[in-house]
């Protein structure tokens, strides 16, 4: 954590919309007058490879341009990464927030993340995505869950941004499905701690 800047690290696999989620949140925050940065970590890109993306949000212009070392919030879009990579790297074990895409209860992950005492939440984002958009792309329900857990922004401003951004690229049906996915992620997240 850097003074006055909220930092979020998104974990997932290429193709799961990790970058899109990190950008969407940032842009929704910008619409509320915040300063933002969002950037993915680029390596050799291939579908299914682990990847991370970052979002920074601040009330002041963000000058720092180095990588995020001590994120305040971790969003794990692919639960198979828990135990595969160190998702808690740089996280404050007392104050950090971790949100995981899983149909299981948060308590299950408590055991897998020994030493972590912060807020832990789970949401079945892949299930929601399959229900609402018919494809296993869990980024949008995860974003809904993040909003519920952190109260970072009003859900409506993310809805607005999503509607605006996705309408440029997708059919009305897909946009509607994503809006539903966002809402359900927000409603169905289970929070522990």
């Amino acid at each position: 954590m850097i003074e006055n800047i909220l930092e979020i690290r998104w974990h997932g696999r290429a193709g799961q919309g990790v970058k899109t989620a990190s950008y969407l949140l940032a842009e929704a925050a910008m619409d509320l007058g915040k300063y933002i940065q969002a950037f993915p970590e680029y390596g050799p890109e291939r579908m299914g490879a682990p990847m991370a993306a970052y979002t920074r949000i601040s009330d002041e212009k963000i000058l720092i341009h180095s990588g995020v070392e001590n994120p305040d919030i971790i969003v794990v879009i692919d639960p198979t990464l828990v135990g595969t990579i160190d998702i808690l790297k740089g996280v404050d074990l007392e104050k950090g927030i971790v949100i995981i895409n899983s149909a299981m209860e948060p308590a299950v992950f408590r055991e897998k993340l020994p030493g972590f005492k912060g807020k832990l939440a789970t949401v079945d984002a892949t299930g929601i995505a399959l229900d609402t958009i018919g494809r296993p792309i869990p980024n949008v329900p995860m974003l809904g869950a993040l909003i519920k857990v952190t109260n970072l922004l009003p859900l409506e401003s993310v809805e607005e941004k999503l509607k605006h951004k996705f309408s440029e690229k997708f059919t009305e049906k897909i946009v509607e499905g994503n809006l539903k996915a966002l809402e359900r992620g927000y409603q169905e997240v289970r929070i522990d701690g």
Partner: protein
Amino acid sequence: MGKKIAMETNQLAAFAMAQIDPDVVAAYPITPSTEVVQEFSKYVANGEVTTEFVPVESEHSAISACLGAATAGARVMTATASQGLALMNEILHIASSARAPISVVVASRALSGPINIHGDHMDISSIRDAGWIIMVAEDAQEAYDNIIQSIPIAERAKFPIITSYDGFITSHAVEVAEVLEKEEVQKFIGPKKPDYSVFDEKLTIGVLALQDSYIEFKRKQAADYDKVIDIVKEVGKEYGDLTGRYYDTVEKYMTDDAEVIMVAMGSTAGTAKVVVDQMRAEGHKVGLLKIRLFRPVPKDDIIGVLRTADAVMIMDRAYTYGGVGGPLFEEISAAMNDLPCRPYMANYIYGLGGRDIKPSHIRQVFEDGLKAVKGCGFDQQIKWITVRE
């Protein structure tokens, strides 16, 4: 006040190009500037610009087509990076001596090998003797602002220009930027008034000049190139009058009473400002000099800031094999020779191939400087940092 938007800097660069609406864009895409060309081609396909878009088969062809169009009097732009810029090298020299005001956007990237697609300043450093104006942006806002300013700078100076920003670190990051309306951009840059055209029967382009006249051409080119510094200042002031964002060849950050001044270029300058704020709060007199105009070297502006420092820490995200240090260190050391009494100067080579430079690294550099000021035995003049050894 302008409109605030958030997009990846590459998209923002294409947006700026579309507002400029050049007559010709000839381009070949290369990472990490691919999206500039890709996004710009959408503006062309959607009929939002009047540009003649020429997709070519290589960067050598891209810059050759740009030069051809520029000699016909057109306003011309392209985008590239790394090996793409290297492949343009042959024509870069011809373009600057033909006084063709081409504007090239560069997302600065490491040079292969080993193959690396990430950000450093090796590509722009490798062509610093090509007679082009080279400007480096700290963030998305400055990247946008520099691209708009590149047109009047190049056309008044009658030299080609590169405006660069850091590959991936800046090119692939979304940040907030305040932008102008297209009409405002058009008014600011004005219509292109060609100085000459290849269609003029009395003009020869691509002349042969041997022992009896070549050096006179070069003398004139060198003298005119030195005038670029004043033109950059003039355009930076006019742009400030329009937008409230004033630009100079360098940017001073807490340097007036600083004992230790860091010199840096590109995105690292932003991170360094954060560290300066932290260390100032702890009572250390540190500051930052950001180099915005890399070529021509704004010598007097640099000396003017650094002359009162006790220690100067020069950060190079590039290296010159077998040189006496990185490119910025060499230039600034040479410039400082004019001073009767020089500050202590050290060089840090860092972040090659996109290696992250953290606030802790920058703090360590400042602490080295403070030690040197106090005479506590810091004596290594050139150090590599952010490296495993």
